[in-house]
């Protein structure tokens, strides 16, 4: 059923269609609307047979989820930013225990300085926590990915994060096609746990594993994600057959045939990139783009296939590996191991900085001339930075950087974009 609705609400509807039995909620912007929506559905009785638990922290949210999942019921939670970091220990634990929890990340920056806007620093920080990470490009895809995520998680006994850009998607009203309950039921069978806490068949879950088997346990976790590399496209294909639209999969190439320059990115920015690609293609530039949907497992082979004929690859990252540059770039480079081409890391959209078509076009043109630095910060206010560096060099007690920058910038809200 087509609806014009907020991204968060679309996700809430999608999750509800997956019939979770336990939902753990702790408020943090920008994922809040999702659990609010679910809470409303539970209270109203629209989402029957489900516990909606208001917990005292994100750490507790995922911990409660660990308990309910281990007790054998389908479990969901959502978080963002600091919240994800606060639950970090439990994030690793859930995957280590092989619990198929699905969690939405409303992607948001990490402080300090505190910043509530979008980038990918939060989910990137958990990229190696053993969860599958899927990044949505649109609200429709986010909705669809949740349905696929439960199926994938439960097939593999591995938790899945569905990452969607905070505000840009979570708070965006757009058209989504919400499937019917029967369609979802046909795709997503009831949860059949691999292990369950049950007095009739007691087991010990969460043993301490020493050097004699820890490597094997980690290997098996890796192996599980390698299996996911096969299951993710297969599920996307099945999903497309049943629901009539393409969602998910490992990567999504766009106009890469014959492209000399290919832009790689995660999440909603791909839409804007595609606009620019179209514009530049019309102007005769051989450019294309690839959206990575599955960041964990990282689709090395698929990316290699998509990128190997390009002359250059621009990886646009909404996260900064401080002291290195890009995180996604590392994986892309590994995918292209042994292939000679120019690779550029572009850090963009940090803390909600708008990524505009104009900036992207300028960037891609520069890339086309191979005039980019290895690591570029899109739309960096170099004057501001230079001034601050001067100031700090001149005064020992230079005070907080962020506040100093803001002071120099004037009223933030006076600017658009």
């Amino acid at each position: 059923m087509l609806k014009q609705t907020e991204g968060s609400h679309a996700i809430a509807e999608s999750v509800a269609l997956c019939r979770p039995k336990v939902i753990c909620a702790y408020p943090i912007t920008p994922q809040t609307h999702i659990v609010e929506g679910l809470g409303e559905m539970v209270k109203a009785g629209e989402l029957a047979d489900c516990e909606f638990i208001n917990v005292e922290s994100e750490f507790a949210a995922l911990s409660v989820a660990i308990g309910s999942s281990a007790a054998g019921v389908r479990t969901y939670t959502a978080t963002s930013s600091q919240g994800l970091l606060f639950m970090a220990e439990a994030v690793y634990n859930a995957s280590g225990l092989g619990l198929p929890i699905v969690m939405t990340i409303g992607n948001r920056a990490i402080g300090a300085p505190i910043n509530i806007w979008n980038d990918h620093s939060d989910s990137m920080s958990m990229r190696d926590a053993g969860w599958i990470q899927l990044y949505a490009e649109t609200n429709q895809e986010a909705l669809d990915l949740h349905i696929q995520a439960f199926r994938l998680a439960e097939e593999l006994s591995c938790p899945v994060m569905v990452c969607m850009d905070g505000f840009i998607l979570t708070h965006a009203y757009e058209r989504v096609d919400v499937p019917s309950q029967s369609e979802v039921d046909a795709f997503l069978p009831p949860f059949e746990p691999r292990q369950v806490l049950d007095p009739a068949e007691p087991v010990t879950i969460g043993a301490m594993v020493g050097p004699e088997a820890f490597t094997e346990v980690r290997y098996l976790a890796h192996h599980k994600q390698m299996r996911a590399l096969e299951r993710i496209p297969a599920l996307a294909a099945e999903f497309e057959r049943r629901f009539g639209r393409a969602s998910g999969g490992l990567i999504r190439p766009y106009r890469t045939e014959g492209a000399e320059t290919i832009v790689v990115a995660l999440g909603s920015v791909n839409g804007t990139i595609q606009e620019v690609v179209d514009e530049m293609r019309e102007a005769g530039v051989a450019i294309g783009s690839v959206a990575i949907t599955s960041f964990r497992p990282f689709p090395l082979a698929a990316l290699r296939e998509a990128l190997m004929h390009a002359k250059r690859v621009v990886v646009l990252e909404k996260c900064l590996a401080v002291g290195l540059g890009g995180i996604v770039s590392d994986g892309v480079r590994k995918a292209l191991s042994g292939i000679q081409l120019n690779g550029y890391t572009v850090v963009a959209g940090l803390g909600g900085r708008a990524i505009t078509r104009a900036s992207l076009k300028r960037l891609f043109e520069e890339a086309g001339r191979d005039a980019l630095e290895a690591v570029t910060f899109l739309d960096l206010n170099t004057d501001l930075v230079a001034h601050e560096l001067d100031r700090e060099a001149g005064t020992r007690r230079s005070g907080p950087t962020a506040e100093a920058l803001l002071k120099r910038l004037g009223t933030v809200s006076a600017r658009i974009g």
Partner: protein
Amino acid sequence: MEMQTVRFYQTGTFTVGNRLLAPHERSVQAEAQRANALTSGHRACQGCGEALGARYAIDAAMRATGGKIVAVNATGCLEVFSTPYPETSWQIPWIHSLFGNAAAVASGVAAAMRRKGTDDVRVIAQGGDGGTTDIGFGCLSGMFERNDDVLYLCYDNEAYMNTGVQRSSATPPAARTATTPAMGPEPGNVFGTGKNVPLIAVAHQIPYVATASVANLRDLEYKVTRAMEFRGARYVHIHVPCPLGWGSAPADTIKVARAAVESGLFPLFEAVNGEIVSSTKIRRRTPTADYLRLQKRFAHLFQPGGEARLAHIQAIAERNIVKFGLEGTGA
């Protein structure tokens, strides 16, 4: 609390069993067919009070629920010594997640049981004092205030034993730990610090809170059993000596625990819906010094200059005795 309803049975209910009592009056631990939820082969130190306390408590819960128990364990000695791959000592469904989240995981299990329609399966969370009063305190308080249907058992050995005896917020004054060494003008743990989590639990007005000790099995079993009569959040805080951390003889584990109770330093009480309703009376009043002397962690108190601190501890015990009404007729 009515314990000894029989007129006189040699050892009454003070020993684990008593062949003179009717079977229904005997303790869980006296039963040949007891659950032994925590079975042999675990790697706890010799004379481990926590191993003992855990079996006491879980077996009692097993009897109270007809064996329908799921346990969630915080990281700590109990977890480490009971479940090193490839062996587990647990005979019940059991999960370990993290150090600080046992209460929350248990909330999740309870929610799942409710949703599965199997809420006759009761959920227990358990941890040491560190996992309960410090790192797990947030989750514990959350579980309490939501009144989730979980019995939380804290095995209090008064420090972080698993990591090598560091101070926790349950470490008593003057106790030597690795992070409160017996040095300087105020050796050992500082007086006037720490928190009383049982009373904090009472302040949450949850249905049931109790303190218990491995030195008083019947009292402990009664409290666990009683806790199982309630739905909602329940908390039982069990004093379990640690020979390693306390520097007491392994054989003295119960003796030390008994001295803590009989001196008034560890009051046994129970509270229902936020009100303290009873206390277990001291049977044979013991000076606190007799308790402290059994433990090397307090050895500095018995060196010259320790008198004032000894007196301070005695005063704490006496305050407890008045506050919790520990003297008078009782079991």
